[in-house]
């Protein structure tokens, strides 16, 4: 799917067919890929990298354009089962146009940073910046999910919440990898700023991006360490909850077993004293109930 955009008075607006300076290709089909490779001379491997979530972020210089692959968080879907994944996006900067290639249809150019843009380089940098912001937002969500799972674990005897926490831990590893990869890319952008046409305020913006990305990485690292270090404690809590349940069941079993024993003894087909006593039934019931009280009393005195 192709979407054409153009810069009008510092704003990005939808362009008519055949015009525009920003081209957004969402999951390009075979024909679109052929056009990108043959007409615009994009490297086939770099184009494939833009759509491959496992590719690392990187910067490549081609004769007519600069190729940037960066990492961004993939939007979560219920099928992901608490695994927050990372996707790749490709930016191909030409002298007169910017081609954006991504795998899934997400609204681009949202937020105040795109309210005013002056060059294609600026759009490219702001897209990378918005991915850092996106990572930060997702880290907040991961933290909120982790808090909710902890609340559930405190009273749970099931493994599913622990497994969900493991999924979050895995997500943070993906995020750390993506953020680390983006940091290398931003550093390379700064080192090659003149070659790409980044100068003045945009260069300061690259420095800010580097700081923001580093803060985001540290935040992800802290969350990851907390999750990893507390996992053993959480496993113990679930195990302990199960032990408490087993203890309660044992009390119930013993409490039922003793009156059963009393009643069984008196049910034996032999003569025993007072068999013909008119209140014998209630005496036996009394013994049975006393045994329950006795068990409870011993339990209470022993503080089991």
């Amino acid at each position, binding site marked *: 799917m192709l979407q054409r955009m153009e810069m009008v008075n510092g704003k990005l607006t939808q362009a008519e067919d055949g015009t525009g300076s920003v081209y957004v290709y969402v999951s390009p089909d075979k024909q679109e890929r052929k056009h990108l490779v043959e007409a615009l001379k994009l490297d086939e491997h770099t184009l494939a990298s833009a759509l491959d979530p496992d590719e690392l972020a990187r910067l490549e210089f081609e004769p007519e354009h600069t190729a940037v692959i960066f990492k961004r968080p993939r*939007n*979560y*879907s*219920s*099928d992901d089962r*608490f695994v*927050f994944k990372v996707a790749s996006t490709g930016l191909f900067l030409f002298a007169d146009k910017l081609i954006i290639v991504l795998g*899934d*249809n*997400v*609204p*681009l150019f*949202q*937020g105040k940073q795109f309210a005013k843009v002056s060059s294609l380089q600026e759009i490219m940098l702001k897209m990378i910046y*918005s991915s850092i912001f*996106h990572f930060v*937002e*997702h880290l*907040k*969500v991961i933290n*909120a*999910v982790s808090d*909710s*799972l902890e609340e*559930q674990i405190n009273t749970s005897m099931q493994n599913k919440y622990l497994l*969900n926490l493991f999924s979050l831990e895995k997500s943070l590893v993906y995020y750390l990898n993506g953020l680390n990869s983006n940091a290398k890319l931003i550093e390379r952008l700064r080192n090659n700023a003149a070659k790409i046409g980044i100068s003045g305020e945009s260069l300061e913006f690259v420095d800010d991006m580097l700081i923001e990305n580093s803060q985001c990485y540290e935040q992800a690292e802290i969350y990851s360490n907390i999750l990893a270090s507390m996992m053993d404690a959480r496993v113990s809590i679930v195990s302990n909850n199960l032990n408490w349940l087993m203890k309660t069941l044992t009390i119930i079993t013993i409490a039922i077993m003793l009156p059963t024993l009393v009643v069984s003894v008196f049910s034996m087909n032999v003569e025993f004293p007072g068999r013909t006593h008119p209140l014998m039934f209630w005496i036996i019931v009394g013994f049975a109930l006393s045994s329950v009280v006795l068990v409870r009393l011993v339990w209470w005195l022993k503080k089991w």
Partner: protein
Amino acid sequence: MVGSRSAKRTVIVGNPAGLHARPSAAIAQAVRRFKSKVQIRSRNEVVDAGSILELLTLGAQQGSDLVLTAKGPDAEQVLDAVVEELSKRYE
């Protein structure tokens, strides 16, 4: 009962990525600011809108109908807040 009201609205998910992580977190956070309880129904599934865990399992795609039901003293206000969060565009 005095002070307890109920409200109901139907909204359509407008975000291209559906009800994903960030809107879910924002909705759960918004609901917790109010006293009323909110439930969201999508297809045949009903979840507590105050629980991010339940919202993340809803899997509402773009164009899905969501039926919001609130019960409590500030039922209308909490639904206003949820509808506002649902109308935001997320990247």
